[in-house]
């Protein structure tokens, strides 16, 4: 192969990889959305809100945590089911981010990851991830 051929091959590979990365980026991107959009349930998204006091309950048989988030602005509610154990400091959280997908039939947001923001002094807030 001549030099030009190598360059062409290189450019093709590079383009292919760029396409591969862009696809991966799009597929793994979890946008922050308002509850209304999350309810469409067409992709993995993240929703944020404050924990409705007293709404959380852990069902041991299902190993799931149920709770309700409230959008601080619109005061809208979103029921969430998180398949996992209750994170430490969960009840004290100032805000909770749930990452997952809305389930149309269960009428619940099925979270597979939670970000729990606790009041703390490290520059105002501390976040911990649970998956």
């Amino acid at each position, binding site marked *: 192969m001549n030099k030009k051929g190598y360059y062409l091959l290189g450019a093709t590979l590079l383009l292919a990889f760029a396409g591969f990365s862009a696809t991966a980026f799009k597929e*793994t*991107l*979890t946008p922050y959305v308002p509850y209304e959009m999350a309810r469409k349930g067409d992709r993995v998204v*993240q929703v944020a809100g404050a924990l409705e006091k007293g709404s959380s309950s852990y069902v041991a048989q299902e190993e799931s945590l149920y709770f309700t988030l409230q959008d601080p602005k619109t005061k809208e509610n979103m029921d969430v089911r998180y398949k996992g*154990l209750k994170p*430490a400091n969960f009840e004290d959280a100032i805000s909770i981010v749930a990452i997952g997908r809305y389930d149309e039939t269960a009428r619940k947001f099925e979270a597979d990851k939670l970000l729990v923001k606790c009041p703390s002094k490290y*520059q105002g807030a501390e*976040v911990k991830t649970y998956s």
Partner: protein
Amino acid sequence: MLDSLAQLYLPGALTLWCALFFSLMALWGYAHSLSPAGAAASLPFARRAYAFFAMSVVLCGLLMTLLLALRDFRIEYVFQYSGLDLPMHYQIAALWAGQKGSFLIWLFWGALLGLLIGRTAGKNEPAVMGIYTLTLLGILFILVRENPFVMLRETPLDGEGLNPLLQDDWMVIHPPIMFIGYAATAIPFAFAMASLWRRQYDDWAARSFPWALGGFLVLGSAILLGGYWAYETLGWGGYWGWDPVENASLIPWLFGTVLIHGLHMERTRGRFRRINYVLATLGYLSVLYGTFLTRSGVLADFSVHSFVDLGISGWLIGLMVFFAGLSIFLLATRLKEVPTEANEDPFLSRGTFLVLAAITILISTAVITAGTSAPLLTRFMENPGQVGPSFYNRVNLPIALLIALLLAAVPYLSWKGNEPREILQKMIGPLGFAAVLSVAAGIWAVREPIHLLFVFLSGLALATNAHKTFTKYRAGGLRAAGGYLAHVGVGIILLGILASSGYDESTKVTLELGKPRQVGDATLTFQRFLPRVGREKEGMEIRVQQAGGKEFLVRPRMFTNDRTRQVMVNPDIRNFLLQDFYVSPIELDPGESAEVALAQGTSSRIGDREFRFDSFELQAEGGNAMAAMAAGKPINIVTRVTVTQEGKSETVQPVYAFNPATGEVSNPMVALASGGTLSVGGIVPMNGTVQLLFNKPLLSIDVTRKPLIQLVWYGFYVVLIGGTIALVFRLREMQRRE
């Protein structure tokens, strides 16, 4: 102005203002010594001004450390990040707990490093030092504006304390080392800019190479320590989470990796001459960009390390724009003049493979940068979002394969080019090793073809480089072996990453106190609670019996921080030759509890258990409990309780300790062999009855087996040792030449 002056701790503010004054003097001196008229006399002046600047900064850093050590809570920073309850080493570590302090320590190291750079810059010292001082001036401006010496109007009695997550020994060493690494990225940048500016294209590579290599080693060590921290104490389940803050340190390190190879090529073979300027620039700008991302609040909702906007985003953007503008201007106007060699390498040659490896690492860096910037990139779209670890893992898998392949070939390639058959012949030994390794991996658990290829190529890279390290060592000692040794380490790391993150097994289980539970091929028993002893925090003891009969204890910690009431968790890890056994507590549920009041000699049932209060005994220091009680001294009431369940009995002795002087009561729970705990809730001395509390605490834990994770650490050590060997020999060579 006067109002805000009154609120500053003057000695501290003075050191910053002095630093500002002397740095401007130094800048003026360096600039003047470059002008035709200025000449000789200005350089000693500039050096002296720089020395005074460095002295002011060091003084400033020491003063803040002293204020922290003295717990002078008049100072807002001391108040915000420290407290009376902290031991001295955390009190001092509070220096880098907040943003202002972080910038201070960055400037501190930067100023100290600057004292050594001038001597290594040769004739170009004024330009190099001028640009280097400019980079420090940027940080200094931030500090003068966001002054860390602001005082409170009233002196609080105690500070707000240090974030419990940061109260850890790793916190004492990891961040300061990280900041040396960040500060060091400005050095190759200053050399590169000065070289372009003064049109002295020839020796900057050789002169800045040891700095670039040293910075690479320091930043690498800091990343390694951060990984340890995340894995061993924070209980995040792994050493790397692709968190924006982690990535912000990885990106400059990857640029540094390419830069040291580029500078080495330029120094020895005159190659990479133009691209090295770009690499040094990107390395420095990526530090500024990472600082902007993590300190400006744009990632506030996306990162484990959340930082809130301090109002310095504007400054950081300004700094980035300034240095990006400066470098783009210099690169655009001068790069064409830099002589290069026409690339006539055949494909199968060392030169081509090095270029390919450099491109591959740069692509990886670009992808990681894009992923980290996702919240920023998508901000302009409808809904900002982020990408998770799966993005980085997916995209970097093919990159790792390619890197391993290139690394494997490099030791046997010559500059002039080789025939494929010649290379394969030389590779027979390593190929055999890689094949055996892949078969072994296949027998063990690796089934996916792409993972088998990964094992094969990583093993091959490990073996060819190990072979070359050995032959180089035999031929001429360690002198030329460092680089190959570092590549051996990369092969080891790749194997460790695949095994530990691709083939780990993780289960979440809930253990009832005292009741054995099967998890995989091991039996776990939550045996007892561990009380707080000195600096050892409260925790749990879990007995693990493995199928082979091996038995050991793990003691994960779970405690509430006294100040913030935050629940803290530290995992416990047992290292074995082939895997780590990792136990991290998730939640402790006090469980159902029941209470009975019993007079001595009587019994009562709770569920299927019968409790009998046999007797009690009073104990006190000095022996005479009655006299102690009468004197109001602390006493212990040791009870004897027999618990019977399904015909089996056991006797336990829960204690009730009472100090009449303080009213303090301590009544620790005692674990029962039949499960659950017993404690004494109270005593009624009048009629001699005790209140017994029966609890069935439930502990939820994460049990993970991480195979071969040790390889990640060992591989990293090998990389760092290899790099250090190379650095030591380059420094010796330079000394000889001077």
